[in-house]
């Protein structure tokens, strides 16, 4: 058994928040550069060049890439041979978020759903924990903006719909979202499980690098076909029209019930921010 102090978790979250909110992931930046090279429409080209210029300014001047520094989503894989000493795990995470959002002047965007009163420190974080083997803790920090989160959808398909139905659902969600989620988007898809696990899989899919593929060939094929169909929609960067409406489709799956085929689409704007560490 390995003993870990909760301070180690708290300071890791603090560093991840900084890294994630100030930088695009390298894979996302590469995809955006490639998209910019392909466009001919002046407004669309302008949108993409502005986005890339912004990323440089944010990194250089230590300003948040996007003012929507999001809800702090943390995916934690906790080795069952780790014993945490000190604070409760969730308290350590929330304290790391609280300190980072204050120190780096990130926007506090969390509020009560009814009164809309802001919690003023961006907590509580959204924490998904999974117990895994080993004595390490893997932490992934996804600052999730809501322009794109609002455009997410769940489809409870019938098994008869099959692979074509899954692809139709993905394309439909992106089409309905139009210009609102800040395209070109990164599309996280959960396939299977129950209503809830399917949505969580879609979120986890967004933690995968832009341009990566599912290791299962039939799932990777869904990613590829869905991306081609999305980019044929012509929505383009910021909805100004163009060749790149999505920079990637990432699917994760889980076994489901014989009566169902849940599909969840979690939309991510072009500003793909994600930082990971292993403790």
């Amino acid at each position, binding site marked *: 058994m390995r003993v870990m102090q909760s301070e180690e978790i708290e300071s890791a979250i603090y560093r991840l928040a900084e890294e994630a909110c100030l930088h695009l992931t390298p894979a996302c930046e590469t995809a955006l550069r490639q998209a910019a090279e392909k466009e001919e429409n002046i407004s669309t080209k*302008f949108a993409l060049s502005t986005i890339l210029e912004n990323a440089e300014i944010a990194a250089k001047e230590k300003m948040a*890439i996007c*003012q929507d520094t999001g809800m702090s989503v943390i995916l934690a894989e906790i080795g069952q041979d780790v014993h945490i000493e000190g604070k409760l795990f969730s308290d350590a995470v929330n304290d790391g978020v609280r300190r980072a959002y204050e120190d780096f002047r990130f*926007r506090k965007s969390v509020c009560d759903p009814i009164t809309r009163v*802001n919690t003023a420190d961006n907590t509580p974080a959204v924490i998904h924990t999974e117990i895994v083997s080993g004595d390490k803790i893997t932490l992934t920090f996804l600052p999730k903006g809501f*322009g794109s989160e609002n455009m997410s959808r769940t489809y409870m398909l019938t098994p008869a719909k099959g692979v074509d139905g899954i692809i139709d659902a993905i394309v439909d969600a992106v089409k309905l979202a139009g*210009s609102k989620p800040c395209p070109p988007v990164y599309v996280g898809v959960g396939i299977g499980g129950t209503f809830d696990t399917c949505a969580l899989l879609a979120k986890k899919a967004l933690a995968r690098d832009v341009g990566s593929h599912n290791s299962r060939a039939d799932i990777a094929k869904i990613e590829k076909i869905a991306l081609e169909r999305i980019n044929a929609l012509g929505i383009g960067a*910021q909805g*100004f*029209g163009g060749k790149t409406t999505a920079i990637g489709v990432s699917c994760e799956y889980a076994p489901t019930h014989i009566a169902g085929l849940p599909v969840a689409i979690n939309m991510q704007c072009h500003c793909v921010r994600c930082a990971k560490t292993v403790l």
Partner: protein
Amino acid sequence: MQEKAKTVRLPITDEQIENLKAGDSVLLSGTILTGRDCAHKRICAFLDEGKELPFNLKGETIYYAGPCPAPDGKACGSCGPTTSARMDSFAPRLLDLGLKAMIGKGERSEDVEKSILKNHSVYFAAIGGAGALYGNAVKKSELVAFPDLLSEAVYRFEIKDFPCVVAIDCHGGNIYKRK
């Protein structure tokens, strides 16, 4: 980068609005007000109750945005546009009160489009996600109303060379409907 961006001074004039066409690149300079979800709800509640607003909307430009806190030495933190569609249910009412221009991101409802035509106003699209770049274009920031709303409060910004694209013009042109 853009080559033929038109310079637009704010507050905007009817003549300037007349000359803008959907798809035009513009650089905005002058003063604007910020306002997003909660501020709009509160503005409309004030109007419903017949109370006077703490600021005048006539001739103004509103920016759908909620900034990050300002870093040391800067007027404003990151401050890109938020999704305008969430303000669609409020916008026609504000345009009828004399609001002249809106800055945000993404398409608008039919009602907002009609109101833009009726009121001879304009909707500018800023580039969503470019928060740091827009934050740097804010040269002065002053809290105007609703401080309890934190980043959602109404601020008056002085902006310089704030890059936008004309999204919906006063002649019915709409960049989101171009083919």
